[in-house]
């Protein structure tokens, strides 16, 4: 949908110029798919980040660096990222919009909007970091810190997302519930588990999203899992803890309904992680 009232389209060649434009009120454009529908009223200038060389995926022993202008399709089609932790990224991304949307929508654009996200819970579960550029220069932080400290409410540009290398013997899984396939999730969750040599859990991240808050870890569940073997009883305990999170009500579901969904989402995530780790 064309956006009325836009008088200026900028295409800067440097991050500093792009940031200056944003500081003066221009909105940064990644793929533009969300802005085309939801540009805030009164927006007059857009700044296209296409010339900033932020469309890349770089893999190394430390993991992956994903440029903010990488499309969601670019993540799904990257062989390393697609297979990371048993395939949790494509498992989740396939639910975001359609191929047509994912061909345009960018990682940075999605995270900058920071609402209604299947992506955020998965990125937190796999330990992702984010790098932003602002008047202080470039800095990196954990993705959960970025949202916790409301960095995203300050004026900045997202430049990249980092995904750490997988812990030994690890896998992750994502599950969402929505009324219809294309609907935004009523509740979603993502879990990463890494095993020690003796088969006990050495690394655990349990994340629930759309609670209706953006993805957040469930630290009590993670603590409980450490040192345990991923068997039926432990899965039930994790589910019980996940259901004690503070859920909220909104137009999509009541808190009580979300509590039931959290049990279902957690069970599916853990069962799939266990399958991927071949412990069941």
């Amino acid at each position, binding site marked *: *949908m*064309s*956006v*009325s*009232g*836009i*008088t*200026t*389209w900028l*295409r800067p060649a440097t991050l500093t110029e792009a940031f200056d434009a944003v500081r003066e009120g221009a909105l940064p*454009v990644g*793929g*533009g*798919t969300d*802005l*085309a*529908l939801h*540009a805030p009223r009164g927006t007059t200038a*857009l700044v*296209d980040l*296409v010339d900033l060389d932020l469309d890349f995926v770089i893999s190394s022993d430390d993991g992956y660096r994903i440029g903010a202008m990488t*499309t969601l*399709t670019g993540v799904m*089609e990257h062989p390393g990222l697609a297979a990371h932790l048993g395939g949790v990224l494509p498992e989740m991304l*396939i639910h975001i*919009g*359609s*191929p*047509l*949307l994912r*061909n*345009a929508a960018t990682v940075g654009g999605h995270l900058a909007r920071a609402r209604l996200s299947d992506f955020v819970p998965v990125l937190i579960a796999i330990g992702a970091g984010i790098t932003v550029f602002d008047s202080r220069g470039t800095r990196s932080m954990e993705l959960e810190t970025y949202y916790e400290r409301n960095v995203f409410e300050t004026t900045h540009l997202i430049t990249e997302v980092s995904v750490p290398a997988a812990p030994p013997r690890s896998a992750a899984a994502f599950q969402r519930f929505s009324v219809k*396939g*294309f609907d935004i999730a009523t509740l979603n969750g993502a879990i990463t588990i890494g095993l020690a040599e003796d088969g006990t859990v050495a690394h655990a991240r349990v994340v629930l999203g759309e609670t209706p808050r953006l993805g957040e870890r469930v630290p009590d569940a993670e603590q409980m899992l450490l040192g345990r073997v991923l068997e039926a009883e432990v899965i039930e305990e994790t589910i019980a803890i996940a259901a004690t999170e503070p859920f909220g009500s909104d137009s999509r579901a009541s808190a009580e309904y979300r509590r039931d969904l959290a049990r279902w989402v957690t069970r599916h995530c853990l069962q799939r992680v266990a399958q991927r780790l071949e412990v069941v």
Partner: protein
Amino acid sequence: MKIDLTVDGMAVTAEVDPGETLLPFLRRLGAASVKNGCDNGDCGACAVLVDGRAVNACLFFAAKAAGSEITTAEALAGADGLHPLQTASLDLGAVQCGFCTPGILMTALDLLAYNPDPTEEEVRHWLAANYCRCTGWVKPVEAVLAAASMLREQEAS
């Protein structure tokens, strides 16, 4: 503002509004195959390729396409006749009212470029990007699978 781009193989210099998307822009250029079904990113009737990837023209700012190569369904048929996707769609009855057809063809073109031998499930997943209110999708899915097979045979010969 003025942008330079390539549309269906032709170099174009054109005036665009900075807030305008590709959908009204391409239709203004005469590409009537780019259909305005919902103007909301839901229906896929406006799908075109931007540098080889299918996108919703209604959600893609025209100014972003500066320097890009746009392909619409108008460019599918070449000197050798119809594209296999078009032939298969006609032969297998995948075109009824036809409004969604150009978008389906462009989505399928992207799918087959990256996945020449898709499963029926993969085709169904991709065509979920394109609403079709006539066919119930069965025939378009069959047509894409048949076109994939034709394209693989062309590639092999």
